[in-house]
């Protein structure tokens, strides 16, 4: 079975999209991934723009490349405690 990139969302993004989705990308940048998700879920685009990407519990810049074995997380602005 072909491996797919797992993408997790938190907060409002999880509400607007889902807590987790899988996409077959064949490898892409975080920026490409943002565009792909925004295209598939246009209602989430504005919140996605305000969200940070995270790979392996580290913040990831838009230029970072990810492969289909990775898990990418998108974190909207936090609420605080």
């Amino acid at each position: 079975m072909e491996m797919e990139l797992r993408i997790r969302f938190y907060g409002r993004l999880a509400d607007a999209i889902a807590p987790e989705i899988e996409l077959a990308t064949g490898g892409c940048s975080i920026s490409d991934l943002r565009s792909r998700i925004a295209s598939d879920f246009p209602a989430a685009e504005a919140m996605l723009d305000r969200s940070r990407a995270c790979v392996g519990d580290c913040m990831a810049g838009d230029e970072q490349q990810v492969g289909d074995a990775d898990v990418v997380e998108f974190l909207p602005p936090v609420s605080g405690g």
Partner: protein
Amino acid sequence: MSVVALLEQHALDPQLELAELAEAAHGDGAIVTFVGLARPESKQGNAVDALVLDHHPALTRQSLQDIAVACAERFDVSHVRVVHRCGTVPAGEPIVFAGAASLHRRSAFDAVNYLMDRLKTEAVFWKREVGDTGSAWVEPTEADFADRDRWG
């Protein structure tokens, strides 16, 4: 010196947390604590049954630890203890315990003030109020950010 930062998935007992801090603070002259409760009403005046705090499996705990460590380094305190709930917190129940112990009171007061100002804006939670009118996401207010920024 001790720094404790815990993410609590179930009930938070402020008396128990105070007892733990007091045990560690043997020999100090001051303990200051703050307990935050889930409010039963939103800013818009809607009844709130519960707060639901979504968290990240690693970064939430790390954010609590970073804030507690920064507090311990900044103020003349001997012990810092932060315990924060995640998950569903019914209105009226404790959501956060922040405490500090020191030789003299001023440092402990300042430390807890600092802890709460940073927790309110930087702790990695996504929080929503749930009530009869539905569910509403909550974000820090301008006043919360101003409170945090006064610490530089």
